[in-house]
C-alpha cells in the first residue's frame, strides 16, 4: 500500500471536494439554516468547509453532516453510469474517461470528514437536550465516519469511488438485462 499526501489527493480529485461542500450547503438550505461562508476548494487541510449557524434540531445536524454521502454517491452513479455501461463492450473513449474521472472523484469524497463527525459528536451526542434515540442513531454514524477516515489509509475512499461510479452501474445494468 503506497501513501500519497491527502492534499495531493484532494487537488487531483477536486471536483469531489466541491460537490462535498456543495452538499453541506444544499442540506443547510433545505433546513433553512443560514450559511455564513463556504470554501468549495483550497489546497489545504481541510480542502473545503461550510460555516453555518448552530443547528437546533439534532436530526438536521446529522443530515447536514452526512449530506455529502447522499449527494456525492448519487451524482457519482449518475455521471458514471453511461460511461461505465459503455465500457462493457469497448475500451473507454475520451468522453468516458473524463466522465469516469469526474464520477470517481465525486464518489471518493462521499464520506463525511472527521470534522463532520466532530460536529455531530459535539452538537448531538454531547448535547444533554438530545433524545436518547437520536444519540443511538448518531453514535454508529460517527463510528462509520471514523471507519471511513481510517479506511482512506488503505484507499477505501478510492475503492468506494470506483465501486459507485463504475461497478454499481455495470452490475445494475447486467442484473437488468442478463
Amino acid at each position, binding site marked *: 500500500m503506497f501513501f500519497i499526501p491527502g492534499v495531493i489527493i484532494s487537488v487531483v480529485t477536486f*471536483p469531489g471536494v*466541491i460537490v462535498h*461542500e*456543495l452538499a*453541506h*450547503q444544499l442540506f*443547510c*438550505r433545505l433546513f*433553512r*439554516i*443560514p*450559511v*455564513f461562508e*463556504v470554501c*468549495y476548494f483550497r489546497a489545504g487541510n*481541510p480542502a*473545503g*468547509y*461550510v*460555516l*453555518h*449557524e*448552530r*443547528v*437546533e434540531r439534532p436530526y438536521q445536524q446529522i443530515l*447536514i*453532516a452526512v449530506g455529502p454521502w447522499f449527494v456525492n454517491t448519487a451524482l457519482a452513479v*449518475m*455521471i458514471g*453510469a*453511461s*460511461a461505465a*455501461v*459503455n465500457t*462493457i*463492450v469497448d475500451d473507454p473513449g475520451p*468522453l*468516458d474517461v*473524463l*466522465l469516469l474521472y*469526474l464520477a470517481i472523484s465525486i464518489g471518493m469524497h462521499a464520506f463525511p*470528514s472527521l*470534522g*463532520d463527525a466532530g*460536529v455531530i459528536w459535539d*452538537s448531538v451526542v454531547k448535547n444533554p437536550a438530545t433524545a436518547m434515540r437520536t444519540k443511538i442513531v448518531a453514535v454508529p454514524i460517527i463510528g462509520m465516519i471514523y471507519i471511513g477516515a481510517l479506511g482512506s489509509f488503505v484507499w477505501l475512499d478510492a475503492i468506494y469511488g470506483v465501486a459507485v461510479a463504475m461497478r454499481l452501474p455495470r452490475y445494475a*445494468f*447486467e442484473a437488468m*438485462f*442478463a
Partner: protein
Amino acid sequence: MSEEVADVDTGRCPVCSVNDRCDQYPTPMCTACRDSSIRLAIPRWIVIVGLGIGALAIMSMVLGGYQLPTTMALVRARAAMDRHEYVTAHGALRNFLSTHPDHTEGNVRMIIAAAHAFEMQDLMAAVKVMDGRAVPDDALLRDANIATEQVGYYIPSEGPTTDSIKRYFDDVQSLISLEESLPFEDTALSYRLDILDRLHDLSAYDHVVRRIATLDEYANTGDCRRLTMIKASSLCNLERYDDASVLCDVLLAINREDARAMAMKAWVAIGKGDPGTAGTLIQRAHRLAPGSQIVTEARVHIACRQRSFDQAKAIHAVVREGERGIGADDTMSRRLAAIIASYETTL
C-alpha cells in the same frame, strides 16, 4: 466539512447593522440577512461547470444509447454462458457480432457457444476472425480451445480410413472389422465415432458401442461429448435408462441447452413410463435443434413407445425426403425404419 459559528449578541443585526435583529434563532440577525444567508449564492462558475458536466453525461447517454441493444446482447451472452446455456448465448452473440464483427471477446465467446450449439458456420467465421489474434482472457481462451477440440471429434480428417468408412457404407460387417482394426487410442476416436454414425444396424451398433464403452475415461466424464452421447444412446437402446440418465446429466451440466442430451432424457423418461416429462423435454430439444439426428431418433422412439406409429412414420418420411432433397446418404432414414420396425414387432 461543516462548522458552526458562535452566537453573536448585538442590539442590531450584526450583518447589516441596519435592521432590528430577530432573537428567536441562535444567530441574532434580521429577517432579510437571515434569508440571504440561507440562500447564500452558489458561485456562477460552479453552476456553469455543473451544467457542463450534466451536458456531457447526457451526451454520453445519447451516444451510448445507440450501442445499448448490442451491449445488452453481449451482457445476455455472458450471462447465458455463465449458466451454461450455449444456444441462448449463440443467439445473443449473433446479434452482437452483427454490429461488432471484429470484437475479440465476442468472437471468442462465439467460438465456444457455436461449438456447443453445433453452429459450424458461425464457429468457422469466428475462428477466422480470431486467427493470429491474442486473447487476453486466459480462462476464455482455454474454454474456446476445449470447445474446438470437441468439435474436432465430429470432423475426422480426410485419409484412407475416412475413404474406407465411405466405401463400407452399406457393409456393416466390414465397418465393424474396420473399427476393430483401429488402434485403441485418442487419434482413432474420431474415425470410430464416424463409423458409429454410419451404422444403422442396431445389433452392430451395440456391438461397437459396447467396445467403445470400455473407454470409460472418455465416455463417463463427458471429455469426449460425442462418445458420451453415443454411449447414452446405446444405453437407451439397451433399456438401461438409469445409466443413460446419468450420462445425460453429465452432458447437460456442460451445456444445459444440449438438445441431444435433452432428447435422450426424453427417451429415458418415456422408457420409464413418464410421457409428460418426455413430451416436454422432446419438444424443447426439437425447438433447440430441429435438424439433430439424435433428437429425431428420440422423437421416433417416443412416438413408437406411445404406439403413435403414424407419427413415427411421418417423422421418418420427412427425414427420407430431406435426405433425397440434398442428395445425402440414407443412414438416418434406414436407422429410423429399423427402429419403427423393431417396435412394430415387439409392441
